[in-house]
Structure formats: C-alpha cells, structure tokens
C-alpha cells in the first residue's frame, strides 16, 4: 500500500529517518556482522591474535554433545512452556467467556502476572521451592517427597518451565478471551438448539474457530520460550544442574561471557540468528494467511 499524496524533497526524509538508521547500524548491523565474522575465527588463549578456521566453529559445535544437548533441552523447554501456558489460559478464557457479568474483574486480576518481569517471576518461584525455606518444598517434604531442584535436573527443568509459563498465562488468556468474544453468538446458539452440549460445542465449533489465534500464540510462545526466558533460568538454576536447563540463549551467554569462548559464542549467535529468521518467516506466512481467512 502506498500514499497517493506525498511531499517533495529528499534531504528532509533522509534527516527524519537518520536517527533510526544510525542506531540500527551501530547497535544492530555492525554487531550482527561482527558475530558472523568472529564465528569464522578461533582467538588464541591470550586474545592477542586469532586464526581463521572457516566453518570450523560450526563443525565443532554440531559435533559437540553439550551443544546438541542444549538443542534438545531448548526443544523440551519450549514445548513444555508453550503447553503449560496455553492450556490453562484457554481453560480460563472459556470459563470467563461463559460469564455475562464479572469477566472484567477476573480479567483485571489475571493480567497481573504479565507485568511481572521473568527474572522477578524466577525469584518468586525460587522462593516457594527453595530447598531450605520454600513453602511448597517443605510441604512436599512432609508428604515424603524430597524436592531438590539444585541436584535433580528434572525438577530443575520443571521449576523453570512453570516459572516461565506463569506470566504467559495472562498473555494467552487475553488473546483467547478476545477471540472467544468475537465468535458470533448465533453460531453457538444454533448448535445448542441442535442439541450439542457444551463440551461438544467446544470441540466441534469453538476450537476450530479459535485455530488462527491458537496458531499465532503457538509461534509467539515458542519465540518467548527461546529468547525471553533468560532471566528465569539465570535466577533459578543458572543453567544447572549439569547443564540440564542450559537453553541455547543461556549457552551463548555462558560460553561468551563466563567461558570467554568468543568464536564458539559467535557461531552460536549465528545459528540462533538463522532460527529467529525461520520463526519470523513462519509468523509472516501465517499473517498472510490470516488476511485471507
């Protein structure tokens, strides 16, 4: 789409666009280029010189069992976060949609966690499951279950998943609720008159009508789980125990800043860059589809 009416001149628009182009170039394109460049080198241990290795860093990464393990961890983590945040959100949205009065009050209460930063959410959940003072871990202890996410990788994963999904429930709820409200009443009523019960109506009519929203939320939540959960993982587990919660973004951080392995960290950045690109393409493909829908 283009404007028919435009203003003349070329130096004014260049001036107007300059701040954004400048900031993008300095803090975006240059660092991204650096990441690609550095991914082709291995610096010596003293950082004095570096040796060109071509795709050596990538070859090493793809054969490294820790890096491949991190891929699997990321996949498991993203799937679980997406499920744990979408299913309760859909349930709550369906319930709120049944109400004529009062859904606004519930909505106001349910959107709170969205405002809580992932890192703060991490601290809240860490507090509840802390091995020495946590309330929930204490009650689990009373029931005879010895909770210890510091040593047990599975429990650590469970905890970071729940802490990451918690704030997203609010987000998903808002989108599901809006989508449910936009389904015409007449469609639901017609099915009811035909004798379809609530859950039958839900599976056969409501859920299919929600599919564009569901697909959109799937993509957005996977992107969230990939890139925005660093704060949760850093506050709760720092990637441990034994790397059981080291997702890809966490590994870029720990190899680059803690381990000072710039070549590998840059190569990982480039791999992530490709992944983001793919996810973005999927998102845009979907948006194109939605226009026709």
């Amino acid at each position, binding site marked *: 789409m283009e*404007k028919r009416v435009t203003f003349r001149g070329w130096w004014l628009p260049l001036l*107007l666009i300059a701040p954004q182009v400048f900031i993008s170039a300095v803090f975006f394109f240059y660092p991204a280029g650096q990441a690609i460049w550095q991914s082709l080198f291995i610096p010596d241990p003293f950082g004095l010189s570096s040796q060109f290795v071509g795709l050596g860093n990538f070859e090493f990464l793809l054969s490294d069992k820790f890096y491949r393990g991190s891929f699997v961890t990321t996949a498991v983590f993203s799937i679980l976060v997406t499920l744990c945040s979408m299913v309760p959100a859909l349930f709550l949205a369906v*319930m709120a949609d049944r109400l004529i009065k009062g859904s606004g009050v519930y909505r106001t209460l349910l959107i709170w966690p969205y*405002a809580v930063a992932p890192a703060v959410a991490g601290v809240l959940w860490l507090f509840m499951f802390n091995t020495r*003072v946590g309330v929930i871990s*204490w009650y689990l202890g009373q029931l005879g279950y010895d909770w210890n996410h510091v040593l047990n990788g599975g429990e650590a994963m469970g905890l970071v998943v729940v802490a990451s999904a918690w704030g997203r429930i609010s987000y998903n709820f808002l989108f599901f609720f809006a989508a449910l409200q936009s389904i015409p009443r007449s469609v639901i009523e017609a099915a009811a008159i035909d004798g379809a019960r609530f859950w039958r109506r839900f599976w056969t009519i409501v859920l299919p009508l929600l599919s564009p929203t569901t697909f959109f939320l799937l993509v957005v939540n996977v992107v969230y789980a990939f890139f925005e959960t660093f704060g949760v993982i850093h506050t709760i587990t720092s990637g441990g125990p034994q790397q059981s919660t080291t997702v890809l973004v966490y590994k870029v951080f720990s190899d680059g800043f803690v381990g000072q392995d710039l070549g590998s960290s840059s190569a990982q950045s480039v791999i992530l860059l490709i992944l983001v690109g793919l996810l973005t393409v999927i998102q845009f493909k979907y948006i194109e589809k939605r226009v026709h829908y």
Partner: protein
Amino acid sequence: MAKERHGMVEKRGAGLWLTHVFMILGVLVIFFPIWLAFVASTVTQADIVRPPMPVWPGDQFWINYKNALFSGVNVPVATMLFNSFVMAIGIAVGKIIISLLSAFAIVYFRFPGRNIFFWMIFLTLMLPVEVRIVPTFEVVASFGMLNSYSGLIFPLIASATATFLFRQFFLTIPDELAEAARVDGARPMRFFWDIVVPMSRTNVAALFVILFIYGWNQYLWPLLITTDPEMNTIVMGIKQMFPTGDDFAHWPTIMATSILAMIPPVIVVVGMQRLFIRGLVDSEK
C-alpha cells in the same frame, strides 16, 4: 429438555456457579506466588528460615521496606528504582520518537534509498538483543558506555516494531488531509506536528504502555553492562542480593524488593488496561 439447553447457552444456575468457582480457583492459584512474596516482605527473617513460613502478613512491613529502599544489600533499592525508571522511560520515549519520524519519512516521501532503508529497519525485527550480546557489548564498551544510562537505553531502541505500527497507522490517515495541507502551502513538518502527531495520540499511548514494561523488565542487558551497583536496575539487582556460597539470603529484603520491582509495571498494566490490551494486539499484528 428445551429449558436445559437454553440454560446452557445463557449460563444460569449451577453451571454459572461452577464457572465462578473455576475462575476464582484460577485467580487464586495464579496469585499465590505474589501473595507469598508479599507475606514474606512483612515478616522477620526468623519467621522464614523456620519453615513453614506464615501465610498471613506480619507486622514488619515498614521496617522491611524502609530497610530495602534506603539500605538494600549492595545498593539502596531506591537507587535501583530510579535507574529502572530512567531506562524504561528512555527506551519508551526514544523508540516512539525515532519511529514516528522514520515512519513519517517512509510513508509521506519518495526519496532515494527509501526501499533499502525500509528493509534495513524491517530486518531489525528479527534479532533480539539476546542473540547478539557479545558483539553489542563490545560496541558499547568501545564507546565507553558501560555503566551509563545511554548504554542501557540506546542498544535497546534499535527495533522496528514501533516503526511498523506507525507506518500502518499513517497509511490509514485520509489523503485529503495531506492534500489540503499541501494546497495551503504547509511545510511537511507543520503537517507532521499539527495533524499526524495529534492523530497518533492513542497509538502513542498504547505503545508507551507496552514499551515501558519491555524496558522495565529487561534483565540480560543491564546484567552485562552495569558492573557498578550504583547503576543496577531493580529487576537485575534482585539476583545480586543473593549471597554467594552457603549463607542464608535475607528473604524479607529480597521479597520487599521483588514487590517494589513489580509495582510500577502492574500499575501501568492494570491502570491503563484498555490501552495495554490495544497496544498488545497492535504490536503483535
């Protein structure tokens, strides 16, 4: 039978009560972590280290919050709150200004390189700061911007979402307005200030809500570039309050800080709910 079916659509009677029960349970479960943090911020350390901790607030509210705000652990929390405000408002205002300007240029002018610049901005949509942390850190360090507000703000305002939002909106402004302005001999910037900016008010406000929360909740970036505790933001500073090694963390102070860290974004989200939801839906489109 007919009556029952009717009841299921109109939601009356037992079904309605059950729905309310589910909603209340859902709200309680979702609220529980926040409630527990609040309780922990009103009791003594001794109450917490002998589990189970109490479930109702104690009488240490003022002491704990005063202690957190004015002494803190490494640095008073009041300082971190101030830093977070500067960062969040800087990011929100900065992004809005540069995006309004560039979207105006892209929509209302035909100039050399327009398409190249458009795609350049478009590409920045695709790369969150988490992915390019090491080289971006090096750039900021080489500018001497570590431990500074400009270092906290500028690398995070390079994003295209706001530009696209304004572009979409400007395209819906009727051509007649620009036509009239041109016939009247109004300069482009006059049209921008008198027509475009006032018409974008709601979009600007909705975007401000989203960007404020985005900026406030940043974690990784401030963690990397603020090595001086005086420059810590509150969201990243909480983790720094945990002792290394085997010491007990001072939970009442940490939980008071967590509550303080969530108050500003919660006020923004709940207080400006309409704008927030609009901003959310717009910026995801």
